[in-house]
């Protein structure tokens, strides 16, 4: 048990953080929603109803879609793009999909390689892009969820303002949808870009995301 916890501490740590913060977000969001309702002299709702509300759904979905878009673009961009000196980049001579030998495919695969890395054909092709595909699907689904939940939440607001509700297609062309989308995207792209560059010059001893403390600035693709 102790070994399991130690060997999975990173995933468990962030998993618990996620659960704690999403619960805390739901409570804060419920209070903020009801506060707004009171301010507009409208009815308030219970916590259970808030958890099922489009207001909560859009608040969660708009953040999920941008995180998974960040992962998707980062996974794909680091195939071809390089950042000299960054531990987040591949070495400067390794841009692109690399050779089968470098990627340990087929006859170059170790004995304990994933089965689909060895079998060849469409299975290996699919498995070779399974990370981007999975993250991409999660991004698209959560962006779709944001659009649907946001549409309903925006229509609730429009009705409270004594305005007609609008269609889903009207909402996805609206300022509210794109403001929610772009405010999340800009922060994700800033974080990734800044981190890739900061890690050239700064160090965090022992972190897998940092170069070793004594590693030169120009050294690329080294983590420790």
């Amino acid at each position: 048990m102790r070994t399991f916890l130690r060997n999975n501490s990173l995933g468990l740590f962030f998993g618990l953080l996620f659960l704690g913060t999403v619960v805390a977000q739901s409570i804060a969001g419920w209070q903020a929603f009801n506060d707004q309702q009171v301010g507009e002299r409208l009815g308030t709702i219970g916590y259970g109803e808030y958890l099922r509300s489009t207001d909560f759904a859009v608040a969660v979905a708009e953040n999920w879609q941008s995180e998974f878009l960040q992962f998707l673009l980062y996974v794909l961009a680091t195939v071809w793009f390089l950042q000299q000196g960054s531990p987040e980049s591949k070495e400067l001579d390794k841009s692109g999909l690399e050779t089968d030998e470098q990627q340990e495919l087929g006859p170059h695969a170790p004995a304990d390689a994933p089965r689909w890395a060895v079998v060849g054909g469409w299975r290996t092709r699919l498995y070779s892009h399974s990370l981007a595909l999975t993250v991409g699907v999660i991004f698209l689904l959560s962006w779709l969820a944001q659009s649907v939940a946001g549409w309903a939440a925006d229509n609730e607001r429009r009705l409270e303002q004594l305005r007609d509700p609008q269609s889903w297609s009207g909402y996805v062309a609206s300022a509210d949808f794109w403001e929610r989308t772009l405010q999340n995207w800009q922060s994700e792209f800033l974080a990734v870009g800044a981190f890739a560059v900061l890690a050239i010059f700064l160090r965090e001893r022992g972190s897998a995301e940092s170069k070793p403390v004594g590693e030169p600035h120009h050294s690329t693709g080294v983590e420790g």
Partner: protein
Amino acid sequence: MLVLVLSGCAGDQDRDRAVADVAQRFQAAVESGDGERACGLLAPATRETLEQDAQAPCAEALLEEDLPPVGDEIETEVYATAAQVRTGTDTVFLGRFDDGWRVVAAGCAASGDAPYECAVEGG
């Protein structure tokens, strides 16, 4: 989460009927001259604004407004705690409170994409 959102947005026919029923009962009460019953179906803020503007009790002030008669061509839009009911004769906006759906605004005329201009509405 997507399933939850889509199933929630699929609509609730019982809820839509309940909302439309409140709007039509309000219209019927006004049409029959029962100001008290109609005021009982108004949202608290709407009732207060009406009494303040008219400087008269709600039941009296409401019947002074030139509100349309009952309509039966019902189109209902409900999103969480807010609703709009078109009855063919009027467009009525409702809100959900602890004691059920109540009329927030009535006697409403469209004004492009701007808010409807309503004879009766909250401040």
